[in-house]
């Protein structure tokens, strides 16, 4: 079953953006985390999308989004 927990920031509530079909059957779903904007396909290897298997180097801290710089400031 498709999880709606983000593999990157562990927030819940991901939205479904698209489903891929093959011969009428859904073969994968693309989800997007509204908190950190991570997008993923539920058919991807666990090390890319499962928070338990994913490298902490690529985690995003949902509690501290202010730390990420804004580009092109006047």
């Amino acid at each position, binding site marked *: 079953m498709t999880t709606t927990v983000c593999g990157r920031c562990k927030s819940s509530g991901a939205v479904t953006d698209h489903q891929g079909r093959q011969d009428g059957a859904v*073969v994968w779903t693309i989800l997007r985390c509204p908190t950190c904007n991570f997008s993923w396909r539920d058919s991807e290897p666990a090390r890319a999308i499962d928070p338990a298997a994913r490298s902490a180097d690529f985690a995003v801290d949902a509690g501290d989004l202010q730390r990420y710089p804004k*580009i092109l400031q006047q």
Partner: protein
Amino acid sequence: MNDLPNRARSISSLRDFLELLEDSGQAITWSDPVMPEPGVRNIAVAASRDANGAPAIVFDNITGYPGKRLAVGVHGSWDNIALLLGRPKGTTIRELFFEIAGRWGDQEAQISVVPEAQAPVHECRIEQDINLYDVLPVYRINEYDGGFYIGKASVASRDPLDPDNFGKQNVGIYRLQIQGPDSFTLMTIPSHDMGRQIMAAEREGVPLKIAVMLGNHPGLAVFAATPIGYEESEYSYASAMMGAPMRLTKSGNGIDILADSEIVIEAELQLGERELEGPFGEFPGSYSGVRKAPIFKVTAVSHRRDPIFENIYIGRGWTEHDTLIGLHTSAPIYAQLRESFPEVTAVNALYQHGLTGIISVKNRMAGFAKTVALRALSTPHGVMYLKNLIMVDADVDPFDLNQVMWALSTRTRADDIIVLPNMPAVPIDPSAVIPGKGHRLIIDATSYLPPDPVGEAHLVTPPTGDEIDALSKRIREMQLGALS
């Protein structure tokens, strides 16, 4: 295939070029079922291993994307670049370099205009319920990218403060991260044309509309990827460098676009808004950080029937990105150096967009190569990118790393290198202690001249020149003939 230059000049679209590549054994169709991840990435990386001869790969059976086509590696090898320039497979990198350097500033632009109703790019039009995921067979390019990226988009825009000026239209390659079905973020920096235009639009509160072209005339990506003057049209420039016409039409939102592109996404900047973007596996072979980037809302999509989505593998080299922009990174540095120093005979800035450069120069006097190196650091590209410079003699081919290593091994005196501390640097260099600042290294591997102590050894001078080049080619042909 005996008329390669004319065939190259007759290319007007990605489809034309794929046909030429296929006729030359330089494009293959991957019809076995493949998962978007990690299948597409694995195949693209495997192809990148052969920088000289890799074919373009067209996927037509990606699981979950029935009927959709994806092309990667279109510019992924020197043989493909050679065919684009009207030269045969097997043309050396040095010859390709001089092919491009010889076209610099020499040719006239030929721009023709196609009415929108007749432009192939407008064959199909989507103005409602836009879903980029339904149009593009996207996949995660590197495994920790923050989302699904469009890595080979040529983005066209008008200057928001001077929208009627053709010359001030910008066409550049920027990375786009899809942010939901009808939105994407665009990464740029203030010094790039698009960065200037975004900041101007937000400062003045005026709209900024753009057209994202995918699957384009293959000359545009080569010649629009390196910055030229702000008021010089990239279309005119690409046409002049290709020695061929560029067919333009208008996008639905009024921007000049290529008439024969596969797909055009029309979009508008959401003034002042920023969304989290990244990371993305970039050309130095490292991931960018996560940042808040400008976001665009898609207003319409045009595409040819059965469009081909062209994308790129970019990451730790060697990748298509290196073959795509390498020669056209090198040629302007060469031209700019030659204005002051005609002793410069070739420039190789192929590596990571010129983070390492190799310059061949005939020493006018002892130490002269170092003077040339300092001039290279002050060229437009050198200011940020040329981090390591290796200076070699004029009779060393800087594109032949065996010869460069000979020069390093036998010409370098370790007390005769220069480190320039605390210089500007491209922020994306993963070796940076402080991103945006760093040291420059100049290694003088040229021969010694008095008053340097020259030493007693005399160099061997093996035969070189056209006769040896011809013999080398004949040997290769005899070898290939023995197989057939």
